[in-house]
C-alpha cells in the first residue's frame, strides 16, 4: 500500500501540487498525462530522487518522505533503460543484490530465476550496449525486480520501442506483473497503453491529478474536457477472439462479432480509432469486413469535427467532419450504418 498525500514538487517552470493517490498492494497503477506534465518528476519524488516541497509519501503506513532513496525499497525503470554500460547484463542485475550484500549462491539463484521470468536467460553474459531496445527494457525490469522492491516505478518504459515490440512488451509486462505481484506505478502518455495495462488510471494535467478511476468511469463520467479528450481518442472493448476459416479472427464483444487481424486468441482487449469508422445512411458495398447497423445516441460538436456515438449496442464513438455531419443530416435517434476495416481493429 503506497499513499501519496498533498505532494507538492517544484518543476522550475511550474508546480506539481495537491497530488493525492492511494495505491493498493499488488495494483498495476497508471499515471496518464501528456509529455511535459511532470510524470517523471512525480516518480522521482516518490523514489526520493527529487526534492519534495510539501506533503509526503507513505508505504504500508510508514512515512518515507525524508528517507534516502537507497533505503526505500522503491525501484525505477526509465524509458532509456539506463543500464550500466560498463557492466554485463548479469552484473547489471546483480547490482542491487550486491548492495544488499546478498550471498553469492543466493544471488546466482535469484538472478537465474528473474532472468527466466523476463525471458533473458540467454543474454546474461552480454554487454548491454549490444542489446535491442526490447531486450534492454527486460534487463532493466529484471534489475529492478530482482531485489523484490515494495513498489516498482516505470517511467514510459515502452515509449522508445517500435510498435510491434511495444505490443509484445505490454503482454509480457502483464504476465510479469501476474507472476511477481509487485505494486507498479507506470507513467505514460499513451492512452492505449494505460488501458492495456492498468487496473486504475490517474490522469495528470496542468500540474495536478485531473481524475482517478477505472476505464469505464472515465468513459462515462469524464471529470474534465482533458480527460474526455483522452477517453474519446479510442473505442475500447474487451471480448473473446476465435479463429475463422478465412484467416480472419472473429471477436465477440457482447452483441457484436467483429473481424480483426491478430495472433491473439481468447480473452482480448481491442481498440478502434474514432476516425477509422465510416458512417452512412445505407449499408456500404466495400471491402471493409465490418459493417453494422445502429442508432445515433449522442452527438458531441467540437467545431470543425463532430464526435458521433452510434449505439448497436455497445457504443461506438465515431469522428466525422462537420461537412459530412451536415450532409448526412445526423441527429439523435437516426438509424445509421458503421463500417470499418478488419485491419483498423487493434488488438492488445
Amino acid at each position, binding site marked *: 500500500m503506497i499513499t501519496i498525500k498533498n505532494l507538492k514538487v517544484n518543476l522550475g517552470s511550474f508546480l506539481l501540487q495537491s497530488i493525492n493517490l492511494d495505491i493498493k498492494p499488488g495494483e498495476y497503477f497508471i499515471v496518464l498525462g501528456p509529455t511535459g506534465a511532470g510524470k517523471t518528476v512525480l516518480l522521482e519524488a516518490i523514489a526520493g530522487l527529487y526534492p519534495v516541497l510539501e506533503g509526503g509519501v507513505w508505504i504500508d503506513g510508514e512515512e518515507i518522505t525524508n528517507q534516502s532513496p537507497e533505503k526505500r525499497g522503491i525501484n525505477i525503470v526509465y524509458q532509456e533503460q539506463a543500464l550500466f554500460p560498463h557492466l554485463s547484463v548479469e552484473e547489471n542485475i546483480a*547490482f542491487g543484490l550486491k548492495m544488499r550484500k546478498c550471498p553469492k549462491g543466493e544471488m546466482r539463484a535469484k538472478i537465474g530465476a528473474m532472468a527466466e521470468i523476463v525471458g533473458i536467460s540467454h543474454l546474461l553474459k552480454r554487454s548491454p550496449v549490444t542489446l535491442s531496445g526490447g531486450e534492454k527494457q527486460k534487463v532493466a525490469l529484471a534489475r529492478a525486480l530482482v531485489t523484490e522492491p515494495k513498489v516498482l516505478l516505470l517511467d514510459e518504459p515502452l515509449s522508445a520501442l517500435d510498435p510491434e515490440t511495444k505490443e509484445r512488451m505490454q503482454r509480457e509486462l502483464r504476465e510479469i506483473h501476474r507472476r511477481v505481484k509487485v505494486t507498479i506505478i507506470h507513467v505514460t502518455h499513451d492512452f492505449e497503453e494505460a488501458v492495456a495495462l492498468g487496473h486504475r488510471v490517474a490522469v495528470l494535467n496542468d500540474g495536478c491529478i485531473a481524475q482517478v478511476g477505472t476505464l469505464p468511469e472515465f468513459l462515462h463520467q469524464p471529470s474534465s474536457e482533458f480527460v474526455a479528450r483522452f477517453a474519446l481518442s479510442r473505442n475500447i472493448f474487451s471480448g473473446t477472439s476465435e479463429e475463422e476459416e478465412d484467416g480472419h479472427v472473429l471477436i465477440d464483444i457482447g452483441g457484436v462479432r467483429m473481424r480483426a487481424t491478430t495472433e491473439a486468441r481468447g480473452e482480448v482487449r481491442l481498440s478502434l480509432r474514432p476516425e477509422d469508422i465510416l458512417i452512412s445512411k445505407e449499408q456500404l458495398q466495400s471491402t471493409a469486413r465490418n459493417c453494422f447497423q445502429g442508432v445515433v445516441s449522442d452527438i458531441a460538436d467540437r467545431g470543425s469535427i463532430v464526435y458521433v456515438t452510434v449505439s448497436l449496442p455497445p457504443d461506438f464513438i465515431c469522428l466525422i467532419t462537420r461537412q459530412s455531419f451536415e450532409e448526412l443530416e445526423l441527429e439523435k435517434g437516426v438509424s445509421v450504418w458503421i463500417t470499418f476495416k478488419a485491419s483498423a481493429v487493434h488488438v492488445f
Partner: protein
Amino acid sequence: MTKMRIWRKPDTMSIVFIVLGAVILLFILVPLLKTIFSSSPGTLWNTLFEEDVYSSILLTISAALIATLIGLFLGVPLAYLLARHQFRGKRFLEAIIDVPIVIPHSAAGVALLFVFGSSFLGGKVFHSVGIEFFRTFAGVVIAMMFVSVPFLIDSAKEGFKAVDVRLEKVARTLGASPWKSFFQISLPLAWRSIFSGSVLMWARGLSEFGAIVILAYNASFFGWNTKVLPVLVADRFDFGLDYTRPVAALAVLISLVAFVALRSIAYRGEKA
C-alpha cells in the same frame, strides 16, 4: 564492388588553407626534430648519465607525478560537483579554475611564494608539520600543481557530465549510497576523461618553468641539489648552446614519449 574515388580539382580556398596549415605544422615540427637530431645518440646517452641530468629527470618526473596525484584527490571531487550541480556563481568558479592557464607563470610563482613562503601563513602552517616550499621538492610540486591542475579538473568535469545522471539515480534506488554510486558507477564511467586529464596535467607539470624558477630554482631531492629539466635547460644555456642542446633534446624526447604513450593508453580500444 570497389569504391570509386572521383578526383576533384580542389578549390582555391582549400589549396590556400592547406598551404597555411603546412606552414604552422612545420613551424611546430622542425624545431622539435632539429633539437632531437642535432645531438648524436651517443651524446644523448652520455648526457643521460651526468649526475645533474639524471637527478633532474627523476625530480621532474616524480614531482609532476605527485602533483597529479594530489590533483586527482582534490580536483576530481570538485569536477564532480561542477558537473552535477547548478548554483549561483558557478560560471565565476569555473573561470577561476582556469585562471592559472592564462596568467604569466612567473607571476604565479610569486603568488605562491606570497602564501607558502616561510614568513607567510600557509608557509607557517606547513612549517609546523615540517614541510618547506622554498627551494624544495614540495615547492616544485605546488608550482607544477598550480599551473597544471585546471587541465585535470576541466577534463574530469566533462567526463562526469557525459555520464547519464539517471544511471546514478537507478544505482541509488537499487540500494547504493551516494559513495557507492560514485565509486561504482560515475567514476568508472568517467575514468577515461579523468585519466586523459591526468596525462595532460602531468605533461604540463613536466614542462613547467616560470613558477618553478621563482619558487625552487634549485631543489633538494634525495641528497641532490638539482633543478627541474626546463630550468636545467635554461641554466645550461648560460654556458652556451652546445652545452644545453643535448639536455633540451632529452627534455623534448621524454615529454613526447611519455605523452604519446599515456595518451595511447587512455584511448585504447576507442575507435578514432
